[in-house]
């Protein structure tokens, strides 16, 4: 189709979808309504299980299987990226030239690195208490490592980043989640049952298996993001095609 024809088909489609969505919007419960039966039950159960952060309770206890699927998507996507951005047969690696970084930027980034790392770990560790959790903290912690790229250059980052280890870490995090879930089966009850002692509300060890699953996710996400960014950085900085530079 040429651009004009495409635009007509598109406008027809957009008009239909718009009519559908707007009609539905006016039939939805009004914004801010009091009708949240599932939500109310979830809050009730979260408190009964001594998990202060009800969202973490839903994520890692009541609907932990969703999170399992979500982490598998992350795992699959990272594996897919590793496969898709591999060094092809007609490509080779070049060593990037060292970068010149202004002194204040370097100092700032190097100071920030440990701060960001600690913040990331803090967000993971407090997942069942305050906003945050394995995913959010994992991403922040992984970002911390990449400050080295900003402070120095890619080669410096590569030196402290044993990629193989991170790939294994990604898989171990995923496996840890799966196996923690299987503990319920060994106890003779359903998969992903929260069978550990619940602790007291609002303490670090509260919530039974919630902190364990949370930690597994934190590990997987941090490793996965490092691997993911490594593949993109490799492509952007190091990998070239044969004959590209003669």
């Amino acid at each position, binding site marked *: 189709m040429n651009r004009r024809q495409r635009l007509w088909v598109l406008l027809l489609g957009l008009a239909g979808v718009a009519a559908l969505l707007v009609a539905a919007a006016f039939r939805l419960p009004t914004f*801010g309504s009091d009708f949240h039966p599932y939500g109310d039950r979830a809050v009730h159960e979260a408190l009964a299980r001594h998990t202060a*952060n009800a*969202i*973490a309770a839903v994520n890692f206890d009541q609907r932990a299987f969703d999170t399992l699927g979500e982490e598998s998507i992350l795992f699959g996507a990272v594996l897919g990226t590793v496969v898709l951005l591999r060094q092809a047969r007609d490509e080779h690696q070049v060593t990037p030239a060292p970068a010149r970084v202004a002194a204040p930027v370097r100092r700032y980034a190097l100071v920030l690195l440990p701060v960001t790392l600690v913040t990331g770990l803090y*967000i993971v560790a407090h997942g069942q208490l305050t*906003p*945050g*959790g394995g*995913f*959010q903290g994992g*991403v*922040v912690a992984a*970002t911390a490592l990449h400050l080295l790229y900003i402070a120095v250059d890619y080669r410096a980052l590569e030196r402290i980043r044993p990629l193989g280890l991170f790939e294994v870490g990604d898989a171990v995090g995923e496996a840890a989640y799966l196996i923690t879930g299987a503990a319920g089966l060994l106890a003779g009850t359903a998969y992903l049952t929260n069978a550990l002692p619940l602790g007291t509300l609002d303490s670090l060890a509260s919530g039974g298996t919630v902190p364990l699953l949370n930690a597994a996710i934190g590990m997987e996400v941090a490793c996965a*993001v490092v691997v*993911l*960014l490594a593949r*993109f*950085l490799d*492509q*952007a900085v190091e990998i*070239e*095609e044969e*004959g*590209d*530079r*003669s």
Partner: protein
Amino acid sequence: MADLLIALALLLVAAAATAAVAVREPARQALALSLLGLTLTLLFTVLQAPDVALSQLAVGSALTPLLVLLSVRKARRRSLDRVRAEQQAEERP
């Protein structure tokens, strides 16, 4: 007051989303996307969803734009290298 904040955040998000689509050059779009991530963070906070706000912040304002930028850089480097290689090939004979 809460409703005013939510309405403001919603309008900001709508504007940022429109900008992210209207800016058609990918590197510039990455900037618009990162602002979309930030406005979404604001919206989620006023909708009382701090957990989602944190994830959106980590993903939308840092990770996604960075990946977009790296892809742009890779694609650019390719075409740049190709132009250089062609120029050299032309100079040689």
